[in-house]
């Protein structure tokens, strides 16, 4: 006989597992610190590439001025200035990443908790029947 409640619960659990659940399980496989750390590392790499591309574009944009002032510029000062700007950018972006992924990790865990609750209920239904 078809157990209606069980079928409903099973389809819900399966729907979650096939869609959002996949990501959530992958997320919760990490420890919180590892997950956020990994995402921050990725972020730093991405923002570094983006900043590099942006800076290359900037240099190309001001190519003439650059070439003119090539002998007059204090390159060490210039490098310091660039480095501070880069650091501010990276730290700011990493902070945003931290917030976003800390939230996502918490959400994934909450969803999974619900999912495991559902599994337990399903298990109980089978036991009842047996």
């Amino acid at each position, binding site marked *: 006989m078809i157990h209606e409640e069980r079928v409903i619960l099973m389809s819900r659990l399966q729907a979650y597992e096939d869609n959002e659940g996949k990501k959530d399980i992958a997320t919760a496989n990490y420890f919180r610190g590892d997950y956020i750390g990994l995402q921050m590392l990725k*972020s730093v790499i991405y923002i570094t590439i983006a900043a590099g591309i942006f800076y290359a574009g900037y240099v*190309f944009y001001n190519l003439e001025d650059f070439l003119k002032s090539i002998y007059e510029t204090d390159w060490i000062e210039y490098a310091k200035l660039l480095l501070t700007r880069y650091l501010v950018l990276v730290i700011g972006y990493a902070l945003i990443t931290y917030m976003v992924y800390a939230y996502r990790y918490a959400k994934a865990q909450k969803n999974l908790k619900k999912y495991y609750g559902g599994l337990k209920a399903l298990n109980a239904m089978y036991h009842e029947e047996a």
Partner: protein
Amino acid sequence: MTQLLLAKETLKTFVGRNEVYLKPLGKFLLALAAFVMINSYTGYMERINSMSIVLVAALMCSFLPLNFIIICSAAFIILHMYALSMECALVALILFLILALVYFRFAPKDAVVVLLLPMCFYLKIPYVVPVCAGLLATPVSAVAVACGVVVYYMVSYVAGNVSGLSALEAEDMSGRFRYVVDGFLKNKTMVVVMIAFALTVIIVYLIRRLSIDHSWTIAIIAGTIAQMVVLLLGALLMDAEVSTIGIILGSLVSAGIAMVVEFLMFQMDYSRAENVQFEDDEYYYYVKAVPKVILSRPEKTVKKINAQRKKKKSH
């Protein structure tokens, strides 16, 4: 209204049953529309300006993830720009790379907004995108909407200044690069539109989340009006070029489309809303429960008047 609701239910069942075929079909049509628009708007590279290439690319997109359409569209734009001049392609490439690396790493689902917005600009109804983004997504989509505006104005600036670009000397690469970047970044209209659209997303989102009756409809109307006002005022204050009639007409059409979206996604029966209050040890709960409008399709029963004739046995 009942007829419409019935039609909606029928549509829902139809989509539910045929999702397997409708999804690729939808993607195919979206990709096709996007590529055709890009080709007709820019179309500098002869080789990819043919229908066969567009069809092949759209077919490919139909069974790949949605974001592949966006990657393909970006590639089309960059190739067209490359045919015009290397510097334009460089500007487009830098812009797309930075968008992808900085923003779409967080919210890859929002990328579709960046595709839809320029398409709606082409159809003269860009105002519908921020309103719908506010209805269906989160306020963070304001960033994606702003990115879409930048992409559109970049492409449209290049498309509108082909003669100016070709007048510049070919050897002066940096000069041409500067010409393109200056042209589209110092565009006041773009800034006004960006601000107006981003604000609209946030306003629509905030209002539709309010616990008031007809919040979605109010959100659409308020968002559309706010958008029109900000666009017109901003254009006046910043001396930007906009077409007043275009904004008003486009906004009205957009509000109409947003209403259709509301009808499809959200139907509440406010006449049967219930406000309940209860408490437990720690909290008071003020709950407002609004039932959805649900209609069941009338079952068709076929009544046979003539009893079916039985096959005569041949002896």
